């Protein structure tokens, strides 16, 4: 059988940096070919070359055996190559149908009725259930992704590129996505699947190519005789042991106490209802729950970003209700926010400046309001070394760094303040193995030093691995707190779905 897509000896340089170094890659009809690699390994560059965003410096691309020169994404779409980006390219104020036909329109007049009918038919055909009349802003993340896939298929794509498609999905949505991909595969659609989540790749892919530092370091056909550790080692280029070592440790006194806390969101709607929880020193409490069940609001309540509308927050016995975010920070609350681009970093400011967002006004970095260049430089240098922040220099904008290194800036500057309570929200979301491992180690180190930690994550595996206790949030309420050794995945899953009772959590 001839490959639908064959990439031969592609090289792409950015200045002196070789992002893709003589890469060859092929894709057969009806195949899911995964591309595995750490952040910065060159996955996105390769896909952008195939999608016509970048021109390659060397090498050829063949479609169905014929050499092609792909000049633009528009051209790629015409050739039947479609890409679903990690960050969706949808307009929230438009309906599903409007989003799908956007940019396809050749005539001036838009027959939206006709388009809606066609989209409904396509949605039926591919079994991608979406309502063409619905506004995109009303859809869940999983549904939006379906719209993106449908959009690409509707334009006649035979080759589908999915960039980190599961990064934003809940476990249920991932299962659904995989079912969809299996069906598409049967219809003869070929799929390139980019990810760094090993278990997931092994369950969905036919073949896995591993990319490291711009080179293909291996292509695995025989997935049955392959284990995640071997894959991880091939991807990182050194021996990796998956899973972390968590020593037994006695918890100390109560650091955070939530007493029937209620919190409203920005739109004044009560999201958190009478939430009670205690976290002790030297203890990690995992907050499990399906995304969007009030995690963000709870965290904002605990960090002073949203005011409590009822109940109380006490930190080391001191009532913090109604205090400002600054007072929470001064009371020893560290916050690794869920969205590092929006909440964690000022992307256009330098790495150095981002390391001091909380502490800039403190001695010795500022004296009589004047910034102390030398003290700042020295501290930044030592933080960079200690937290292994890889950047060309401390002066480059934070936005120029990879996700893992951006997260290290935040983790570094927060832990440096010796928080009594650390609120870590999705601390490893979108990070590769190396960076994830690093962040986990940092959390466990803080735990060993007696920090109380609230770990918010939608990835149950991460919570089970790190937590001493697990609290489950459902529609803004605390469904129960389970000790780690009593917890089962099924039990937690039931609580996450809103089935009450601790028996549920411990039932085997």
């Amino acid at each position, binding site marked *: 059988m001839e490959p639908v897509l064959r990439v031969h000896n592609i090289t792409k340089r950015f200045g002196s940096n070789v992002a893709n170094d003589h890469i060859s890659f092929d894709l057969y009809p009806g195949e899911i070919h995964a591309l595995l690699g750490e952040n910065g390994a060159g996955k996105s560059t390769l896909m952008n070359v195939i999608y016509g965003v970048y021109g390659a410096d060397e090498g050829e691309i063949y479609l169905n055996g014929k050499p092609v020169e792909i000049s633009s994404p528009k051209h790629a779409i015409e050739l039947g190559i479609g890409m679903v980006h990690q960050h969706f390219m949808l307009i929230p104020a438009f309906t599903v149908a409007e989003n799908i036909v956007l940019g396809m329109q050749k005539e001036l007049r838009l027959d939206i009725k006709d388009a809606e009918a066609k989209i409904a038919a396509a949605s039926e055909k591919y079994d991608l259930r979406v309502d063409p009349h619905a506004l995109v802003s009303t859809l869940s993340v999983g549904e939006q992704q379906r719209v993106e896939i449908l959009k690409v298929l509707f334009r006649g794509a035979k080759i589908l590129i999915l960039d980190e498609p599961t990064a934003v999905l809940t476990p249920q949505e991932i299962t659904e996505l995989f079912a969809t991909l299996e069906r598409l595969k049967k219809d003869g659609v070929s799929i390139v699947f980019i990810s760094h989540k090993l278990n997931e790749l092994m369950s969905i892919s036919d073949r896995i190519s591993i990319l490291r530092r711009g080179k293909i370091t291996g292509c695995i056909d025989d997935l049955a005789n392959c284990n995640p550790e071997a894959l991880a080692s091939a991807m990182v280029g050194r021996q990796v042991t998956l899973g972390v070592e968590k020593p037994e440790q006695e918890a100390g006194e109560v650091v955070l106490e939530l007493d029937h806390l209620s919190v409203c969101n920005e739109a004044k709607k009560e999201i958190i209802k009478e939430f009670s929880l205690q976290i002790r020193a030297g203890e990690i409490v995992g907050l499990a729950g399906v995304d969007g069940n009030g995690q963000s609001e709870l965290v904002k309540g605990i*960090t002073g*970003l949203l005011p409590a509308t009822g109940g109380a927050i006490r930190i080391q016995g001191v009532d913090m209700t109604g205090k*400002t*975010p*600054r007072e*929470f*920070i*001064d009371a020893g609350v560290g*916050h690794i*926010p869920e969205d590092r681009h*929006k*909440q*964690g*970093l*000022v*992307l*256009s*400011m330098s790495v150095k*400046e981002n390391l*001091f*967002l*909380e502490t*800039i*006004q403190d001695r010795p*970095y*500022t004296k009589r*309001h*004047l*910034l102390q260049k030398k003290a700042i430089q020295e501290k930044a240098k030592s933080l960079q070394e200690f937290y292994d922040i890889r950047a060309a220099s401390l*002066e*480059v904008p934070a936005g120029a760094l990879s996700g893992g290194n951006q997260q290290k800036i935040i983790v570094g500057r927060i832990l440096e303040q010796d928080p009594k309570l650390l609120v870590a929200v999705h601390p490893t979301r979108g990070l590769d193995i190396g960076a994830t491992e690093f962040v986990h180690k940092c959390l466990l180190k803080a735990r060993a030093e007696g920090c109380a930690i609230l770990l918010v994550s939608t990835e149950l595996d991460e919570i089970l691995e790190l937590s001493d206790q697990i609290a489950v949030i459902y529609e803004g309420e605390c469904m129960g707190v389970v000790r780690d050794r009593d917890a089962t995945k099924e039990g937690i899953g039931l609580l996450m779905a809103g089935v009450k009772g601790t028996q549920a959590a411990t039932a085997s």
Partner: protein
Amino acid sequence: MNKRARAMVNYLISIVIALLLAFAIIGALLLWQGVDPVETFMALFQGAFIGKSNLGASLLLATPLILGGLGIALSFRCGIFNIGGEGQLYLGAFAATWLGVNLVGLPFWLHIPICFLGSMIFGGLWALIPGYLKISKGYNETVTSVLLNYVGVYFVNYALSSFFKEPGALNHQSPKIQTSAMLSKIMSGSELNTSFLMALLIVALFFLIFYKTDVGFKLRAVGQNAEASRTSGIHTRKYLLLAIIVSGALSGLAGSAQVMGYQHLMVQNFSPNTGYDIIAVALMGNLHPIGVLIAGIFLGALRSGASVMQIMMGVPVTILYIIQGVIILSILGFSRANIDFIGLVGGLFRKKESQSMAKEA
């Protein structure tokens, strides 16, 4: 070359190209009208820089542009689009004039600061209205500040034709301010006065505060990403309010500097469009204090040169607005496009080298 220096050089090159483009367009217009462009530009240049009186006039006209431009740069840097400079400037000038007229018997060292302070307070409070509405209610400050311009300008014009009118004067104008509120001249044969030195001082202060203090650090952080700043414990609202008040206060100073410096009384429409020109200055100066200083002097020189040009060549002053427009559009265009001129030129050389090498081979 490091990245910052490179970006700087690229920016300078884009400005030079923008200038050449603007003068080329004007040159074509002049040729079409049958006027010698070279001679006209010489007259423009002469009127701007040659001789004490011309140079003095350029710097005099530049002073309000620099002061107001700094204010606009600050608010834009903090993500507040304060277009209300005109109203803030008029009210600032009004306050300074009123204090200058009605406080009698003060020594100059007390009278002048009081007038300046009054203009800053009025300008700042006028800017606080759209600022407060934006921060607490989410109203679009561009719209509210522009609308407040009309209220401010017409209020001042009304005052000058009624309760603040010089009795017996034919024009709608205020009484003359006391001599103790007048600024001293610093260059013989021109109206250039100490307000220009004050502008230079404020440029230096702005630079120092914005880049070398924790307050400036936080202002920059809030302007680039307010949410991350708030998450990091910065009192976002406080800094946004500070930025808009200072912005309005500087516009107010731009007004009072003109009255106290050389006009010595207020007439209706005493400084038309300055409140909008300072936006041009801020943008041309890339929202950087040093850039604003250069852009302010450039536009001031263009103004003063244009009047000489009109006298000598009969070319109307209004062409300077075409120059101004073309320059701003090209600068914005170039800075958006982010062209790497150094890389381009370097690339050309490399290509030639490789071609000549290929020929030799």
